């Protein structure tokens, strides 16, 4: 397929394709980080993860409308306000859900699957009642659309760079919180041994609530960012849920590094295959490889060392 192209053209395409892969990687990381916290640290299978993302997207929609109506001069900067509010909204809802529902189910992890699936349906219908069944159009500030011409042939989408920077920033923040803060130490202690953690004076209930809230908050930020690249409708969250679980499970549930490594390998595989094959075939092959690897290594790429 490369015959008849000059060397600079090929170079440009390969560079842009490399960026496409990196953008996909960042998208996967953003999708999966929130779930990695919740599923990895707490063992809760949160089927409503996509809906927490879409809540963030709707918050972005509301903020953009508010800015357009009341502060048109600052419209270019509304996105940052929207992301903070999306984090707060999704995080708050997450904490309420944890308090009302999830905490009663910690001893029955499989039931959380059904309960959160039900929650996702409830949230979808709530969005539909509040915002209408149709998708809403989120207007993105002009400076975030369009592309950055690096050379004559190479153009890098600006929103892609934005997503990459955001993914990097949030990963770093999550790392610091989990491994360099007192709260993170508590979370890890509760994950490893709940009874013992409680015995040494850690408020395990509060820790759980914070963990779930922060996981949902990160999902909300991801949702806000995805208004740039995807749709915002009551059921849009469903488009992300499969890929999200794929990344987290493949990476090894309890490991943040695993999540990132798995996001990288899946995104690169998919992006390269998509370039050489058709879209559906690329997906099929990626999934087959993931299934194959998980059969050989059920604990995922990176697993915590446990005493057996």
């Amino acid at each position, binding site marked *: 397929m490369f015959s008849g192209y000059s060397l600079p053209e090929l170079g440009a395409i390969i560079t842009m394709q490399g960026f496409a892969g990196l953008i996909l990687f960042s998208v996967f990381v953003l999708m999966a980080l929130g779930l990695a916290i919740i599923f990895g640290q707490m063992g809760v299978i949160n089927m409503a993860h996509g809906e927490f993302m879409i809540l963030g997207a709707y918050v972005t929609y509301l903020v953009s409308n508010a800015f357009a109506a009341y502060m048109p001069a600052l419209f270019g900067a509304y996105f940052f306000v929207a992301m903070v509010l999306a984090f707060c909204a999704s995080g708050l809802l997450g904490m309420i859900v944890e308090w009302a529902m999830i905490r009663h189910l910690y001893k029955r992890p499989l039931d959380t699957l059904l309960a959160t699936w039900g929650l996702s349906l409830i949230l979808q219908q709530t969005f539909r009642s509040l915002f*209408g069944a149709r998708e809403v159009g989120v207007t993105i500030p002009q400076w975030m659309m*369009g592309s950055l011409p690096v050379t004559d042939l190479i153009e890098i989408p600006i929103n892609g760079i934005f997503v990459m920077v955001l993914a990097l920033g949030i990963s770093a923040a999550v790392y610091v919180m989990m491994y360099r803060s007192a709260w993170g130490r508590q979370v890890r202690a509760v994950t490893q041994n709940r009874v013992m953690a409680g015995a040494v004076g850690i408020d395990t209930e509060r820790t759980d609530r914070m963990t779930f809230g922060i996981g949902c908050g990160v999902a909300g930020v991801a949702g806000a960012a995805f208004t740039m*690249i995807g*749709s*915002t409708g009551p059921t849009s969250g469903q*488009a992300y849920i499969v890929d999200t679980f794929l990344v987290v499970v493949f990476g090894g549930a309890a490991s943040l590094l695993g999540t990132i490594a798995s996001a990288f390998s899946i995104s690169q595989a998919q992006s390269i295959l998509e*370039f050489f094959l058709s879209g559906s075939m690329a997906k099929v092959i990626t999934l087959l490889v993931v299934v194959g690897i998980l059969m050989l290594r059920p604990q995922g790429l990176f697993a915590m060392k446990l005493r057996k």
Partner: protein
Amino acid sequence: MADQKKVPISPISRRAILAGGAALGASLFLPKGLRAQDFPTDQINTTGLAVTDDTVQVGILHSISGTMSISETGSVQAEKLAIEQINAQGGVLGRKIETIQEDGASDWPTFAEKARKLLVNDKVASVMGCWTSASRKAVLPVFEQHNGMLYYPTFYEGLEESPNVIYTGQEATQQIIAGLDWVAREKGAESFYLLGSDYIWPRTSNKIARKHIEDKLGGKVVGEEYYPLGHTQFNSVINKIRLKKPDVIYAIVVGGSNVAFYKQLKAAGIDMTEEAPLLLTISVTEDEIRGIGGENIEGAYACMKYFQSLENENNQEFVAAFKEMWGDDMVIGDVTQAAYLGPWLWKAAVEKAGSFDVDKVREASPGIELASAPEGYVKIHENHHLWSKTRVGHALADGQYEVVFETADLVEPDPFPEGYQ
């Protein structure tokens, strides 16, 4: 009943009468103050449908919850508007239409179950409904078994011709061929990149498009590929399109993927207003643009039979009535307009047959003309599809299309196109 004659005839029906009168023979079955007592119930309803001396029941079967509610909401609104207007004119054979609405819930077995409920329990005289091909295929056996009549509004892939369905949207060849001819003739397009969501309609449509491009236009297809429904990452295919440099991107992407595709296309620096490459789609109506954002699709071309901006009196009245009923911020897409035709076509067929019996309505249907259609004149073909014009629209930043081309004649529906299989 006597006071019914005093009901002022709305402007639409007056036009329908005038236009119908102008069209030879059409006036025979148009309303001339039809009164219920002229049509005794036991004579016009011999099969036990839900028809009384002053009412008739009609079913509406769309998804108002689940994924597809995004698309199907507009159809429900259009059908309710049409029924309300028909009732304001005195109903059908002097009988007011009462609607029974069921929710297909975006789930195909649910569609079949609800169709059975409407036909067997409620005994509705006809059903306006379905949107996706999958839901239509699911209810088809039910309609054929219980001899119901379905008015189906969506443009679809063709390859079907059921005696129990009237297809008010275009089948694939009607929608595709005129657009490809136009882009080859007016824009000198020679190479095409076909792209679609991965299910039956885009695949069948692209098959027809490829045959037409290669055999009739002498052009070249430089790429054809499909992405799973709900796919949100199109950067790789955008790079491929850059590499292949086609004259035209022929896109049949649907649902949420649409939004992702057009936003990423714009972000990748492909400015559609420059038309290099030109983008031609058959899957983006004004309804979808609300989600995509007009600024992200400005400059693209769409090929279908109806655009909200059509300039004729029927359409202006239709748009005004629709907005009055459902709100000023509403937009109307191709399928919404096709759904609006359903109740009117059924009314015309019932009045031509002088009976609600499904067999007689079916017999009367071919040849039914509707001069009051917002898209202009339409006529039912022997194969239960509509003769209709095909148009090309140019997307504007405000989310509307500007009509840049319209076929001179009505395009004949051809659900089983020879040479395209």
